[in-house]
């Protein structure tokens, strides 16, 4: 029988490392995808995802269960990604490495027969437009697009109201549409 997240967290708080391993196996792919969507660099995303679970383990005793485990772990992941993006912006070398990662990703995606977007130019423009968003706007776009989370869930993850999520999404989409007008 599969244990619920809450039961696994309780076992983890009691010191069972296997319970934490189960939680990591349950969420590592999703957390990695969200972080990759925000950072646009695979190596950085992998490092931040591993650091996210490490931080979660260290703070697991302070997890009270007020929110669900996925909301809590996503909150840690998004906050760490936003910090990492700010560091990328401050460090031009890191930013260049990030762009290299994006170009590499584009190359791989172009070979992906299951991708919805086939137009390479649109893809490049879209990646540039996403990179031009602020970390906060990028976060709502990524959580909505990849995870399909409700505005309420996104608000809980980002620590803001549903109204703020709604206005950030509206603004971010307008900005993306403005930059991609010729392609949509």
């Amino acid at each position, binding site marked *: 029988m599969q244990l619920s997240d809450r039961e696994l967290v309780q076992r983890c708080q009691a010191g069972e490392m296997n319970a934490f391993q189960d939680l990591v196996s349950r969420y590592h*792919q999703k957390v990695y995808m969200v972080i990759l969507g925000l950072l646009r660099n695979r190596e950085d995303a992998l490092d931040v995802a591993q650091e996210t679970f490490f931080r979660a383990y260290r703070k697991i005793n302070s997890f009270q269960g007020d929110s669900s485990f996925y909301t809590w772990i996503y909150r840690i992941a998004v906050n760490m990604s936003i910090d990492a993006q700010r560091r990328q912006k401050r460090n031009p070398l890191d930013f260049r490495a990030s762009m290299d990662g994006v170009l590499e*990703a584009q190359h791989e995606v172009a070979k992906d027969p299951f991708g919805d*977007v086939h137009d390479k130019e*649109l893809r490049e423009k879209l990646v540039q437009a996403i990179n031009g968003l602020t970390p906060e706007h990028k976060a709502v*776009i990524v959580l909505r697009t990849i995870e399909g989370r409700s505005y309420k869930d996104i608000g809980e993850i980002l620590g803001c109201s549903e109204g703020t999520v709604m206005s950030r999404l509206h603004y971010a989409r307008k900005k*993306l549409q403005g930059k991609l007008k010729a392609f949509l």
Partner: protein
Amino acid sequence: MTNCENIRDSIGRWLDGELSAGESEPVRAHVAACPECGEARRQLESLQRALRGVLLTEATPIEFMPFWREVQRRINQKRAWYEDFLDWAREVFTAPRIAWGVPAVIVLLLAAVSLDSYFPGTRFGGSRNSFASVESIDAHGRSVALLRENESKTTVIWLYQNEEGENETGEDSSKSGPTF
């Protein structure tokens, strides 16, 4: 704001399933009837497809065991005290807290410095200071001075002098401006 503008602002929430049934129906009916709003819907759906295409397809699955071994290594690794301190500081000194905290600290410091004026016996900040302003009007005009006095000396920390008649005549003040 026109009805079309209102509807276009709601299309995103409607497509995201964030509108109630009662709110959705007028949006659906308007978008079906209005070519411009229908085009706005088509563009937004096109953007969503493109976003999903970029964000979902580029994430290749990662193997769990290497991922878990690295998490485990970090958990078991002995950390230096300053790394723990930096982690703690990052959590405590977040940007919004700093934005509130810095002005709050400045206000508290100013309040503490001025405490001595209201409670002379407290000796807050070391020596006992008192502040006084002196205003005089004589043949040379109007002067205002802010003085700081302590047990051993008196210091003029700000002085304003205005020549006689300037305010009354309303003449160009740039010719005889205040001196400090």
